[in-house]
């Protein structure tokens, strides 16, 4: 019963989180629309970004905010502002990735535009010789493509295994060392520990 209540508590925390995020999304979206109507596009982009950062799966505000940002990016004439807008859209989506990547189809299109914008802006700002254009583009691409994020699968294996081997030891101590030593528990607990500990090490190594 007590264990069930702890699960219920965690479920409650998740549901509350979703509710609060959804409310934030609604308020921020309204604010963003207002600011956009007032002719402040950069502020509007920042507020739409916050709508995405308060991401709720299947919320209509996610899609609306992305669409508004895309339109804003298209209509901005200043290249620096355009870069800010495109980078904001891409970055906000990266911050919402979990074991899956919501709206990742948007990322590739955005990245192409960002790379071109950065190259053009760099050339305008620094006047490098024509022969270097390709190198500039290539280096910017390398920087953009490098991702520190480890493998989702192996990260999950590693972190969940850590929790499981800690639980195995706790279980072994609790059930195996009661007044009479319970050999069966000791053996199964130790086997569990070895299994998850090994998985943990492998997961950490490969991730």
């Amino acid at each position, binding site marked *: 019963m007590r264990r069930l*209540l702890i699960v*219920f*508590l965690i479920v*409650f*925390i*998740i549901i*509350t*989180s979703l509710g609060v*995020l959804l409310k*934030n999304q609604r308020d921020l979206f309204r604010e963003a629309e207002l600011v956009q109507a007032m002719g*402040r*596009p*950069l*502020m509007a982009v*920042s507020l739409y970004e*916050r709508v*995405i*950062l*308060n*991401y*709720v*799966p299947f919320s209509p505000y996610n899609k609306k905010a992305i669409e508004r940002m895309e339109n804003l990016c298209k209509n901005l004439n200043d290249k*620096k502002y355009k870069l*800010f807008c495109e*980078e*904001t859209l*891409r*970055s*906000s989506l*990266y*911050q*919402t990735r*979990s074991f899956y990547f919501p709206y990742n189809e948007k990322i590739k299109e955005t990245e192409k535009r960002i790379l071109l914008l*950065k190259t053009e802006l*760099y050339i305008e*700002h*620094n006047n490098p010789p024509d022969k270097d254009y390709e*190198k*500039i583009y290539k*280096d*910017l691409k*390398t*920087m*953009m493509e*490098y*991702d*520190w994020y*480890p493998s989702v699968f192996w*990260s999950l294996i590693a972190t*969940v295994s*850590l*929790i499981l081997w800690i639980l195995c*030891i706790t279980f072994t*101590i609790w059930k195996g*060392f*009661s007044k009479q030593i319970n050999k069966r528990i000791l053996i199964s607990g130790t086997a569990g*520990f070895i299994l998850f500990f090994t998985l943990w090490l492998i997961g*950490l*190594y490969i*991730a």
Partner: protein
Amino acid sequence: MIYIFLLFFSFLYIISSSKVLNSGDAGEFVVSASTLGIAHPSGYPLYLEILKIFSFLPFGNISFRMVIVSVIFSIFSLYLIYRIVLKITNDKWTSVFSVVLLAVSYSFWGQSVVIKFYPLNLFIIIFMLYLCIKTIFDGYDRRYQFLLSFMIGLTLANHHTGFMMLIPFFVLFLYYIKNFLKNLLPSLFFFCLGFLVNLHMFIRGQKGFAVNSVSDLNSFLFVFLRKSFESGSSIEIAKNITSGIDGYLYAIKNAFIVLQNNFPFYIIPLFIIGIWYSFRISKKLAIFLTTFFLTYSVLLAKLVFSGSIMNMDAWYMGAHQYFLPMLSGFAILSGIGFFFIIKQIKKTSMELLKIVVPVALILMVSLSIFERLIDQNFNDNYIPHTVTKTILTSMPVGSVYLTYGDNHTFQSWYFKYVAKYREDICGQDYFDPESNKLLSRGCQPESIYKNSYFFSDFFKGDFSYISKQQRMYSVISISKRNPLTQSLKNQYWVFTHLLIPVNLYFPESYIEKKHTHWQELQYFTMLDCASYKADDQFTRLLCNYSLPFFAYLAKSIEVKNPSGTLEYDTKKENEKFTIKVGLENREILDLYSKVLQNNKPERFKYYTYTKEYLEKQK
């Protein structure tokens, strides 16, 4: 009944929690956790792996998911407090009283709603405390000893203050010395098993993002023992125990101030009664609880918080973070005092009082909720996110960004490695504000940047081209003592300084025009600074630090018909500039005043004890 309270506090913590990156070292924790790397010494592998699991939750953004770790461990700690007090008093109202008292306290709430390892640390400590209390009431059981040893090992993979539980353990196990010694060897074995979590550092020390990489035993010990903090390393801190009696007096004073600012004054008599009454319940219990309380109050304060006068940052980091176990001990002992009062009332024939007094006391304590929903409400605190993003946005492609201090540095790491915002910017942090030694931690993997078209000269130590092209920025102005000052000079930019060669002249209007290009974003950032509610010293620091740059924006705006002028003193190395006031910059100046008002040091709970306040009084 307790579950209703726990649900209620879960709800409150979630609504007041930070929805994006919070200030301080949160940025670093998010980066280290999401890349399965290592955080600043002592590395925090256990915390990072738990953060990583939560990063897979499919809602919010990565920072908010990691805040949920704090919420959950705080709620678990509250539940354990309930179990402990219930075990001691066998009274549900008393247990709820202790839970509410702790849940609404300033620092407990504050740490529950941001990314910080203290709630996890507290959970482990309170779990150990619970096992000890069970030993006192149920008698010696070797399982408790083994579990405690395992927990001690685990806590060394999180925060070292958990290790101080050895002191109350030692006192408790003196009562069971024979059994304790008999099971010492397996206990050591379980301790080692818990300690094994630190293997994470060897495996991920060079694979994930690591503030200090770990590759062998020496580098492991360097991180684990926090040697980079020099006088703040674990070994040096431990030496403080024996240094000077004065330190103990200040420690007592400071610990008392922390208690005074976390709990209502009328609880203190309950706490005193609680100590006395715990002796009546069981001498063993009283000695153990008092030892626990003294360890995490006076002794901990002596080690890390025994200055006679300390500045605001020290008060924020010390008072607001380290003492959660002391606050928990206080809540438990006050609960025992509450139990005594209730017991006395129950002996009388006044039936109404038997219900009214406990309910009234719990309600009185609960009133602090309203205060906490203001001073610990991070829901609208986007400042760490926005300030850094605005800075990065304002820089041209291929710039170098020099940072100093946790706030700017860690937040820039977050944007680079997690948010993947402006990867074309190479972050470098000052080893020391007066040194030209730069650490390349915001420019990783170095091989990509070092050999790139943009930064190869910079990495060879030649800053002339990059600074001439206005692609070098610094959060702090280069001081006269820094060797960089021989070749570079500071120019106000968007919440940073643009570093240009000393012999290069730009007309001021040229830079000013470029500065105003980002007026809308600077204004947006300052709107946040003018409206956030939380009493967060590092957020305040970020806003106040950004103010002179914002004033420079007001100066940069062209005013056609000035109604007057303002002499602006930056309070740094006698730097002053004149702002022409007019319709064009009126909005900026009004917002400046609002930011100043919202970020007054007086808003800090501990302000009246700080060096800054005392100096102002003189």
